[in-house]
């Protein structure tokens, strides 16, 4: 009886709200209880259940890296009941947070290797945590390449950080938008992510690939990576199945016998090949 109520959330104060696109926001959140904030730790890849009291909970990754303490960030699209309510909140207001849940990107195993990040649309947030994590420990990793695509220029998130990555000499950034999604002053590429990846043809030698994006992008990206010589063990992705509890009980995020909330959300392509297509 000494264990805590696993459904009782931390209380976090919204410190800052950033409009990423017309319907995507990033929130910087700080613990209202200073001690809880100091004791809270997480690792890159983990997620949480964010809640607006009176509306309910929703599941997002922690979009900030563990190397930056004192706050966590989440990025979400305003779509349903909870995210709409969340989007209406202002700095100073309080939300609930349960977590961190799930497994991690094994970035200590990646030390000394080159890293290739491939993201589509609203799937950059889970990858942003790991990108900043490795950039904050830059000397431990080899070359870092980021390929990021969205439907239109307006749909690109973290624009200020894309500019920052573009300017860094130790990062190779390729941005692309779907054909027709360009603006007159767009300087990035035009084309779908798998095609842009194919053309960029990064080397698979000593390289780990991390892919996050909509199912259709992932589906067409895996064969290109295979063609480039990436083995299924060196391709990582995250699954985004619907969740309620986050702790392996509510019964809906499973892919076969695997719980995305406990065994994931990070999986290798090798693991996905062994799993039924329930994602």
């Amino acid at each position, binding site marked *: 009886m000494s264990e805590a*109520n696993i*459904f*009782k959330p931390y209380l976090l104060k919204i410190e800052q709200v950033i409009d990423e696109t017309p319907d995507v926001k990033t929130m910087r959140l700080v613990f209202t209880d200073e001690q809880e904030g100091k004791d809270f730790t997480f690792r890159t890849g983990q997620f949480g259940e964010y809640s607006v009291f009176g509306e309910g909970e929703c599941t997002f990754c922690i979009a900030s890296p563990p190397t930056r303490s004192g706050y966590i960030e989440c990025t979400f699209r305003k779509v349903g009941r909870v995210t709409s309510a969340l989007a209406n909140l202002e700095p100073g207001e309080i939300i609930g947070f349960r977590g961190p849940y799930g497994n991690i990107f094994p970035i200590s195993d990646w030390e000394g290797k080159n890293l290739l990040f491939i993201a589509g649309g609203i799937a950059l947030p889970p990858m942003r945590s790991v990108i900043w994590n490795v950039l904050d420990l830059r000397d431990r990793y080899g070359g870092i390449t980021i390929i990021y695509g969205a439907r239109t220029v307006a749909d690109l998130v973290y624009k200020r950080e894309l500019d920052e990555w573009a300017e860094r000499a130790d990062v190779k950034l390729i941005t692309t938008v779907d054909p027709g999604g360009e603006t007159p002053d767009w300087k990035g590429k035009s084309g779908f992510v798998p095609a842009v990846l194919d053309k960029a043809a990064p080397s698979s030698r000593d390289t780990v690939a991390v892919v996050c994006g909509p199912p259709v992008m992932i589906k067409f990206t895996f064969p290109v990576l295979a063609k480039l010589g990436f083995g299924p063990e060196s391709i990582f992705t995250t699954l985004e199945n619907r969740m309620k509890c986050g702790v*392996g*009980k*509510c019964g*809906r995020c499973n892919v076969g*016998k695997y719980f995305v909330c406990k065994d994931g959300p990070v999986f290798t392509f090798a693991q996905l090949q062994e799993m039924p297509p329930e994602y």
Partner: protein
Amino acid sequence: MEIEIKVISRDALERVFSLWLAAGKRILAPKKTGELVDFAWVTQLSEVCLDQVQTVQSPKLAIFPKVEELFSYQTAFDQVTIQDRPLEALEEIVVFGLRPCDAAAFASLAAIFTWDSPDQLFSARFEKMTLVGVSCARADEYCFCTSVGGGPGATTGSDILLTDIGSGEYLAEIISEKGRQTVQAAAGKFQPAAGKEKESHLAKVVPSFALAKITPALAALFDDDAFWAEQSRRCLGCGACAYVCPTCACFDIQDEGAGDSGKRLRCWDSCGFSMFTLHTSGHNPRPLQSQRWRQRLMHKFAYMPERQKVLGCVGCGRCSRACPVDMNVLEHLRAIAEAKI
């Protein structure tokens, strides 16, 4: 502990009910309302109905209510106060008259709620519950406890198991420490049981499939879309099977608030519902009813045995009795066990 065998008369049992109430325990037992027999709070043995093969609902609601408050909250613009559930306020309860299958089902529920991150509220309720089962004198065509490791007189899960041996007497098997304490607290009501037996008073439930064949068959059949389409053709996705099931534990979490206060609630849910796994984007990992039916059986007969080391089915037959389109899970399991793989 070793099972101790005693007898108790119906009159003495009636007095035990009074002792439970005097000790502050609430009693949940099968009660007849109109044509339906279901678990309800009772105060005396005469209210209890034991003539039925099974109640409509399972007794899981004793510790896993349909809707349950996880905590309540009060909000202001820049302040939220969370009021946790006071666990010490949870009442001690006795579930009386549940069948051996239902008693066994609590182990499956506990496996889900206590694996990995233990659910404190569930565990506290479980601790405060005593199970006094009554074995089955009758069974029907939907019962299949003996195919999934149980039996009409099986003691697993019960703290005390009673068997009606006629002439107003019950044979009482004292199975657990909680059961022993119950007997001690009812000094003199339980008597020595020299020469009494229960076997001749039990229903006969003939095993109807080989459980050992089910898990490997499910693994082999997973990708056989035609098989699952055939199995689930009638399924309406109504979720009745999950609601009456004693081991189904899938739940939703919802807020119910008005103004600046409210509650966060856990509510029963079902893998049979089309929206259960629906993503916000509109994508659904299990878009077909056949895939949802497969999930139901895989979860109980393949995933739970592997992940939580228990079977997710006790053979009570409630899902088949409740199904509005008469899908009999026993026929489906037989077809799986006998499938050519």
